[in-house]
């Protein structure tokens, strides 16, 4: 035995190393448990360095962006002074401001308007496995992050938290082959299951051929998976075709298209509603508000009186004018609409004419 071990020392060592790691693998697969301590050590060791690198990169990028932005604005100003009038220049300036709006500002606005309680996080790295699509963010258990929380952006869903460390977390992206989420189409309310496939596009499975679905239709989260709150954008159907058993629907996920730097982790999700209204990022033609001429024609004041019921924002139809007229008649006779104890106002007088006091209320209750 000693001779064998000495003669094949290297092979024995190789065998031991392989068997030890196979044992480690077998333990993890059999028990379904992760060797968490080693991962925690590794991620904790890497996180400060990754934060430092990301901070340096972000600072440099911000400086360069500002420098070149100022340089471009100066050039642009000179050109505009020569070519355009003042109005056009102001317009251009506003456009430039809009186009260079900070992502963080956009994220903060979304965070403020969203009903769900969210926490902003920054992507600081990728995971190392070749088949997976996952990233590491700089928020962890110390920030209240838990496994299974949804990760979103204003543009759409990004993924979900699959591993939590003290100051970092792993986020499985929607494009990962093991990712799945419940989705519903916005227009036809077709339910399906979103699945990543390791590419930039994802598929929506379990949609029967009989279901009506159109290319270009938007998908939103359905909330069925108990991870993503209902009503968050997912993406737009790029390909819809009948398959052998079920429809083949390919989607371009909107949350991962514009790069991943800042994301929001949903700490406490609130389900939203799914409307058929056009989505915010689609171009919508909006008419200018009507002027007050129409309201002036009817003799009504378009501005609501203090303490009165809010008036419609625009008086555009005959019904609006009638409502305004009767409201003015009631106000002239100190009548409070909705109060059962006050008598009905005299509708035969105009608000400007002297008002005859209304008759006292009958002793018997009025007929319905």
């Amino acid at each position: 035995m000693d001779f064998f071990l000495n003669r094949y020392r290297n092979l024995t060592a190789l065998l031991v190393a392989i068997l030890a790691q196979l044992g480690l693998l077998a333990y993890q697969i059999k028990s379904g448990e992760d060797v968490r301590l080693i991962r925690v050590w590794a991620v904790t060791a890497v996180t400060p360095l990754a934060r430092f690198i990301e901070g340096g990169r972000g600072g440099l990028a911000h400086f360069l962006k500002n420098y070149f932005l100022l340089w471009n604005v100066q050039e642009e100003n000179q050109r505009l002074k020569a070519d355009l009038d003042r109005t056009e220049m102001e317009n251009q300036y506003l456009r430039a401001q809009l186009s260079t709006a900070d992502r963080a500002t956009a994220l903060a606005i979304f965070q403020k308007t969203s009903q769900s309680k969210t926490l902003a996080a920054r992507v600081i790295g990728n995971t190392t496995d070749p088949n997976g699509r996952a990233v590491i963010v700089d928020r962890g258990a110390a920030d209240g992050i838990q496994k299974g929380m949804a990760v979103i952006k204003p543009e759409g869903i990004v993924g979900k938290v699959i591993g939590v460390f003290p100051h970092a977390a792993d986020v499985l992206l929607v494009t990962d082959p093991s990712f799945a989420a419940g989705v519903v189409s916005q227009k036809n309310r077709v339910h399906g299951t979103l699945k990543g496939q390791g590419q930039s596009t994802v598929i929506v499975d379990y949609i029967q051929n009989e279901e009506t679905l159109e290319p270009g239709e938007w998908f939103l989260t359905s909330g069925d998976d108990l991870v993503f709150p209902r009503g968050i954008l997912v993406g737009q159907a790029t390909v819809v075709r009948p398959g052998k058993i079920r429809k083949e629907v390919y989607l371009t996920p909107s949350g991962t298209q514009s790069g991943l730097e800042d994301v929001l982790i949903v700490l406490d999700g609130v389900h939203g509603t799914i409307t058929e209204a056009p989505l915010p990022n689609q171009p919508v033609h909006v008419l200018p508000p009507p002027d007050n001429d129409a309201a002036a024609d009817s003799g009504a004041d378009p501005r609501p009186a203090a303490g009165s019921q809010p008036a419609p924002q625009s008086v555009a139809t005959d019904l609006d004018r009638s409502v305004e007229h009767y409201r003015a008649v009631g106000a002239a006779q100190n009548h409070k609409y909705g109060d059962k104890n006050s008598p009905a106002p005299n509708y035969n007088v105009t608000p400007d004419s002297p008002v005859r006091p209304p008759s006292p209320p009958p002793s018997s209750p009025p007929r319905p």
Partner: protein
Amino acid sequence: MSEARGRFRDSAGAAASSKYHWTVIVGVPLAAILFQVYVPRFFADLAYLELPLLVTVYFSLTFRSPMAGLLYGASVGLAQDSLARPQHPLGMYGIVKTLVGFFTAFVSQRFDVRSSSIRAILAFFFYFFHEFFYWVLSRALLGESVDFDPVRTLVRAALNGAVAAPLFLLLDKLKTTE
């Protein structure tokens, strides 16, 4: 622990010893893993680079000891495993890189591996071996239905081999030869 020693056999057959400071032996693979974690976020085309593997091949060639090669490969592989997503169990990269470290050191004991072209060819071969064996393990042990595209893997192996040649020359600068 302050220095580690590897030996190259020169073309005349004489042995030349090479020493590395321990910070190089620990820092270089760490930098390679950080590169893999961080850089593909901004330069997705660089995701094909398997720098931890190239570093394992380089140091295993330098150590010329199968025992040291397998321990180094196992360490780098397990470190890489620990930074993968949680569904990826620890040991997958560890096993593959253990084999790579062992066989690389084994080859270096029998051949003159100081030539850049030989080292590039070894990097090419071991990249293909690494990817193929990882695919086999994924299917056999984890039951994952992962695609293996031989043509794409060969192209990536060639690219890694091309990167390995200048990278190994750069790493040669970090050693102190007696």
